[in-house]
């Protein structure tokens, strides 16, 4: 059972390769069915890993890959990566079920998603910088083809190109930062565990500052934070529903995960030196994301901007974890734990929200909130699910988002009181915008768009859609009510991380 992580990571890719041999004329159930089966098996394996007790990096595998340049195939999970691996497995299973109704070029669609699943899982278990970078880059390539091929027409191609160019620039900046770390370490290595232990750029200096700048910009583009967020709204708006869900729930986490896995433990001195920059960027993202979301009339675009807002809380949390003055270790640990929890919470909730907007588009062929009114009467199940997701997203107690944001604010208050106070205002704005959206779309007199291309009657959630979305919301609620099972996994790892940053 030592190779279980490799099995989890590469199972989808192997199945994708096998599906490519099946002729595209085969019934689409063959492809969607295989995807559902693979994601369920993967999920079961991840649950098995979760239930295996242990501390530190577990299920480690290390095989020499390019020994002359210090690159190895090194994977393993700890309390920071395991929740994200589980989130990935859950989200892809949900998307697989949701996609049972997909009928456009299903073979390529399923193969791309399976490849994306391998890439996402691989990134979160990677313990080698080049392995991490490989998955980071491939996620861009596969998501590009998904948006360009299955998005909404010509604008989707422009959005996909913008997405590729922006995030590719970010990834190459990241690569430069990795190279500086590699050259600073003696002996030269790209291994994450060895680099963390070696702390090659201890003491700061210009090289360390440049490395953090390159890595920080690379991750900030992917996260995204203001001012590197401009690729996000068009990419989200034009992508298919499942693509948006994966993009928001998984791909954005690759940026924030990079901060806790790479930037903080490998450059602790420099991180502490510039932590206040992260705090400021985080707060600006929180407020800017919320205010711009408030101004949107397009429902999907609005949710996209709330992602900027929610990722801002994560950046605020990791920034606060680097400010030693005025905070004790417990506070910094709380902020780190909150940041990781927020990644999971945002993944579940925003994933569900994007799938729900996909349902809306499927029925009405429009994301314009003004085109809809009074849907609650005609589609009660859809309205209920959307309301639950919206309340979860705005941080109502009882949902995962509240647990996460509460911990971030509590942890950050001591070291960055002004920033935290400003960030709390973000919650107020998100509450306003979600309530307004609910009111516009679901309440009032019934009005449906009658644009051409709306052939079907406006149906409520289908069984497969319900089966995809409701479990996400149930999980978000369970984490909100009984968070210990998650926090017990995260807390030891965030304690270790806080110690690494403070050294």
């Amino acid at each position: 059972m030592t190779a279980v992580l490799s099995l989890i990571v590469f199972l989808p890719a192997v199945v994708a390769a096998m599906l490519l041999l099946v002729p595209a004329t085969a019934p689409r159930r063959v492809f969607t069915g295989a995807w559902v089966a693979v994601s369920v098996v993967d999920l079961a394996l991840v649950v098995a890993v979760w239930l295996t007790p242990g501390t530190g990096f577990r299920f480690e595998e290390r095989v020499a890959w390019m020994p002359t340049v210090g690159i190895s195939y090194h994977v393993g999970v700890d309390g920071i990566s395991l929740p994200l691996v589980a989130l990935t497995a859950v989200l892809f299973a949900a998307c697989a079920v949701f996609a049972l109704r997909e009928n456009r070029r299903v073979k390529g669609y399923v193969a791309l998603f399976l490849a994306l699943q391998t890439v996402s899982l691989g990134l979160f278990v990677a313990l080698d910088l080049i392995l991490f970078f490989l998955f980071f880059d491939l996620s861009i390539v596969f998501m590009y083809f998904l948006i360009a091929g299955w998005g909404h027409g010509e604008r989707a191609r422009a959005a996909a190109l913008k997405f590729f160019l922006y995030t590719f620039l970010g990834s190459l900046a990241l690569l430069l930062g990795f190279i500086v770390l590699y050259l600073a370490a003696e002996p030269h290595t790209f291994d994450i565990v060895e680099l963390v232990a070696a702390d090659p750029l201890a003491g700061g200096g210009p090289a360390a500052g440049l490395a953090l700048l390159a890595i920080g910009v690379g991750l900030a583009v992917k996260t995204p934070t203001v001012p590197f967020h401009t690729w996000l709204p068009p990419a989200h708006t034009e992508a298919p529903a499942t693509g948006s869900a994966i993009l928001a729930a998984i791909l954005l986490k690759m940026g924030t995960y990079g901060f806790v896995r790479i930037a903080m433990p490998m450059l602790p001195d420099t991180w502490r030196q510039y932590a206040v920059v992260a705090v400021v960027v985080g707060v600006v993202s929180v407020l800017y994301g919320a205010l711009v979301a408030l101004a949107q009339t397009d429902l999907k675009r609005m949710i996209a901007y709330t992602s900027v807002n929610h990722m801002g809380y994560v950046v605020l949390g990791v920034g606060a974890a680097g400010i030693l003055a005025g905070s004790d270790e417990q506070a910094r640990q709380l902020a780190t734990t909150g940041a990781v929890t927020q990644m999971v919470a945002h993944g579940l909730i925003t994933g569900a929200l994007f799938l729900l907007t996909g349902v809306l588009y499927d029925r009405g062929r429009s994301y314009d909130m003004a085109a809809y009114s009074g849907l609650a009467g005609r589609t009660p199940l859809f309205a209920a699910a959307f309301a639950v997701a919206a309340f979860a997203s705005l941080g109502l107690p009882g949902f995962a988002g509240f647990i996460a944001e509460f911990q971030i604010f509590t942890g950050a208050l001591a070291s960055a009181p002004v920033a935290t106070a400003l960030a709390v205002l973000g919650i107020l704005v998100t509450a306003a915008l979600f309530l307004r959206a609910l009111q516009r779309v679901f309440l009032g007199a019934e009005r449906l768009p009658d644009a051409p291309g709306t052939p079907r009657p406006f149906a409520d959630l289908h069984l497969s859609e319900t089966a995809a979305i409701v479990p996400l919301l149930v999980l978000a609620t369970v984490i909100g009510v009984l968070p210990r099972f998650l926090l017990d996994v995260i807390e030891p790892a965030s304690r270790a991380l806080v110690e690494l940053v403070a050294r």
Partner: protein
Amino acid sequence: MNGMNENPAALLPELFLLGSAVVGLLWGAWLPRTRQWLVRLLAAVAAVAGLVATAVAATRPDELVFGTSYAVDTPTHATRAIVLVAVLVALALSVDATAGHRRETEFVVLLQLGALGTVLLGGANDLLLLVAAFLLASVPFYALAGWDESAPGTEAAMKYYLSGAFLGVAMLAGTAILYGVGRATGYAALREGLATAPVAAAGVGLVAVLAGLLFKVGGVPGHFWVPDVTDGTPPAVAAIVTTIPKIGGLVAMYRLLSVAVPVDVLDWPLLVAVLAAVSMTLGNLAAFFQTSVQRLLAYSTISQVGYLLIVVAVAGRADLAQPALLYYAAGYAVTNLGAFAVVAALPHARTIEDHRGMARRHPALAVALAVCLLGLIGTPPTAVFVGKLVVFTAAVDGGFAWLAVVAVVNTVASVFYYLRWIAPVFRGTDPEPAAPRAAGTWSPALPTPARASRWCSGCWAGSSCRCWWRRPS
């Protein structure tokens, strides 16, 4: 006692190329047109034999043969291996375009002679041999450019010849100047001579020699022939002239600068770094709005030369410089040939617009094209990615971090035009234009193994890097 190192067996791969070219030329003169494939077969056998000889030679220690004029070391072995593999790919790539042609034999022989010149460029350790190799690597390719006798082909050959003649004369003059001020042509002796030479004269001589080599690799400012030759010749010829001479030319620059020119006399790293930056930037900017796929690939090769010149700029100052150069060159050769193989497979689709919706009609070719172009961008896990990784690392290590940043910006810019080509290929909804027919069975079949080897070399870069690891002694 000079006879000790005048052992022809040390040049076995070169002799195989030469022998099969001469025998093939004579044999082809008597063969009927339909049987000329035998010459191609002979060339392939000679290339395989050359590869075996290279593998055997690589196990022996490095040496200088024929006085100090020719180096048999890791860069030479790598040049031989890359060029011979490229010859094999080019032989397969050109079957559909040249089989049964009345000048098929000439095509094969010119390819072999040009490849021989390229290998000699890589191994040359003496300025005079360098000039001779330059001519041997140039003249056959001039003829190859005009091989199909079409109007654009003739124009391409003319342009290729004129720029080659001009820069070749400059190179000869530079050699004379360097000999005059350095009082030697062998690299090691030249290094000692240049240490006390007048700086201005040595600088002029070096720049003139580099001009010839830059013409050979198609880098700025010797790049003017590249777009016209690539666009005006059949894809098989374009693939050859944009791939094979670059390998030897870059290794020659690397060897000349790191062995023969002391850095404290002439600041050549800065010169090469600026040329690298200009080359990649100009190639990328010019490629942006090209509509002809061959012209787009032409500018893309100019920018790729820019990335390769980065390594030349840090030659001798970064541990990774030599493996980076050889690995990137190998990855580039396979990837570029793969991209041209796709173009050769659809000879009637000359513009990006003609490739629209190709994924439906030729799904395997479309995937091969996407992998090749993503490979040229340098996304993992392709070979060029590993190449770029080591090149960037060598650049930062050698003190040219700004050049690595320029390369990164250029890489992102290059995504734009490669995607401009990839995106229409996968568009399925457009009405079908007159469907370009595949050329035959050889070139469409080729991209698949080329692709596989590229992914493999990306994945298993470790072992191949290891054998190129040995530093020059």
